[in-house]
């Protein structure tokens, strides 16, 4: 298993309700999640805004420390591992962020953006690794000298992917990476991701609010609602026969590009 997650809980202090005396109350965002991510699988994580998708992703990459439960990554319990001991695993998982413009430093060139994590992990041979990553995402090598604002949305998202795969991680978490893209570049980025997963033998968690995209890309799907898993299973089965009212409601609300869909 790439991940074994049991009763995962995560809460944040609720500063807006801080009393004069006593402890700050906490908002529970993840309310006891249990699921596995087998190696080589593409897992879709879907749910409405505020359901806890990004928080779950950040906990899985230990950008946040859970308040309860356990996270095992490739058998190793990383739930509370202190930062200085996380270094070795950090090389093995990477994240691609939602908004390519705000996650890419606007003052750094594409080459420096891609080599950032490589440098951090003490890799050498940076230039050839950057070139290789650019090749893999289908961008010309001379893009290394460009700045993010000189790229289209789809190209920026490719840079985000290149940066994530340059380290040759085993696991990638992609958080809403096609949400801001037009359908044509969305289709290109998703096809690219599908190819990379196959060619590099990656395990991928793909966070999205778009069930149609999830259906196309993911082997398994997990539906999150108010910080709880309402449904989890093989994607085809989940879409063909959704078991819970919430999943049924989500599916029924999607406007398909088809005038005959019963929708109203």
């Amino acid at each position, binding site marked *: 298993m790439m991940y074994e997650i049991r009763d995962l809980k995560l809460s944040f202090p609720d500063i807006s309700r801080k009393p004069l005396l006593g402890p700050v109350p906490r908002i529970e965002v993840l309310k006891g999640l249990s699921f596995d991510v087998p190696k080589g699988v593409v897992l879709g994580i879907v749910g409405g805004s505020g359901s806890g998708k990004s928080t779950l992703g950040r906990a899985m990459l230990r950008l946040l420390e859970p308040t309860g439960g356990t996270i095992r990554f490739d058998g190793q319990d990383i739930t509370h591992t202190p930062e200085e001991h996380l270094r070795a695993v950090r090389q093995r998982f990477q994240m691609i962020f939602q908004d390519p413009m705000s996650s890419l430093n606007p003052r750094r060139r594409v080459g420096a953006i891609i080599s950032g994590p490589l440098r951090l992990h003490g890799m050498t041979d940076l230039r050839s690794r950057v070139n290789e990553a650019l090749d893999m995402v289908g961008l010309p090598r001379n893009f290394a000298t460009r700045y993010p604002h000189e790229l289209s949305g789809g190209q920026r998202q490719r840079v985000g992917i290149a940066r994530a795969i340059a380290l040759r991680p085993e696991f990638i978490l992609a958080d809403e990476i096609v949400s801001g893209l037009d359908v044509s570049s969305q*289709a290109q980025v998703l096809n690219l991701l599908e190819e990379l997963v196959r060619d590099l033998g990656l395990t991928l968690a793909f966070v999205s609010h778009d069930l149609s995209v999830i259906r*196309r890309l993911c082997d398994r799907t997990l539906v999150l609602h108010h910080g709880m898993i309402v449904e989890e299973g093989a994607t085809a089965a989940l879409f063909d026969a959704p078991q819970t009212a919430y999943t049924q409601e*989500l599916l029924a*609300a999607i406007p398909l590009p088809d*005038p005959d869909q019963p929708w109203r």
Partner: protein
Amino acid sequence: MNSFLEVRNLNLSLKAGMPILRSVSLNVAAGQVHGLVGESGAGKSMIGKAVLGTLPRALQVTSGEIWLDGVNLNSLPTAERRKTIGAKAALIPQDPLTALNPSKRIGPQITRRLVDILGWQKSDAEARAVELLHEVHIPDPARVMKSYPHELSGGMRQRILIASAFAAEPKLIIADEPTTALDVTVQKQILRLIAEMQQRHDTALLFVTHDLGVVSKTCDTLSVLYAGKVIEEARMRRFFTRPIHPYSAALLKATPTYTNPRGSLTPVPQSVIDATEREVREHDMRASR
């Protein structure tokens, strides 16, 4: 059919000369919903802004006419043009949070247009606002009038902007990506509400969206834009069953649909992009002669 809005051969360019809209023509009849679709940057929002007279300074109309309710807007002096647009047309914007002033209560934000632009009495405007909030199914209008935008959900804020758009009984509504920021379940409620209001008030609606799924649920007719040029005009059903322009057909194939996962999400082929680009260049050559 009589058009309430008629855009005739509208050309719009950056002051530096770069074309933004290329001989755009379209009609929206009273009580009808016309969709404007296309990828980002195609010029959808600029058409709406040209109609409402809110174009950014960097852009100018180089030729063409906009007729609203039988009046050529270009023929009116600025002040009168503004008044005509204010009385006959209104916008439902994309992002309810940036469209509302965060430091002002909801009530005055709805009544302001009625008082400032249309010269209503404040008390009449307030009564009308409460009535409108009822109409958009907001449970406790009196309380909501006193709330600040951040105290309300995204869906509630969009309901308020819809109420606000219909306040002065305009006969044309321009909705610019009105549900893009919302969850699908909320989107469905808001789209239903817009349809309900549009029908009850018998307004013409110009519906801007990049989402072909949304178009198929909302529009009677549509125009597909590419690089500021209308490449296809169609009745809704015909567009989805028999798109004529290869770029339209490619857009449909690129749109993800969970009911047909393998048949969707095909990138627009480069050959289609090249051919469409060629059409745009041919238009520019004809226009410069």
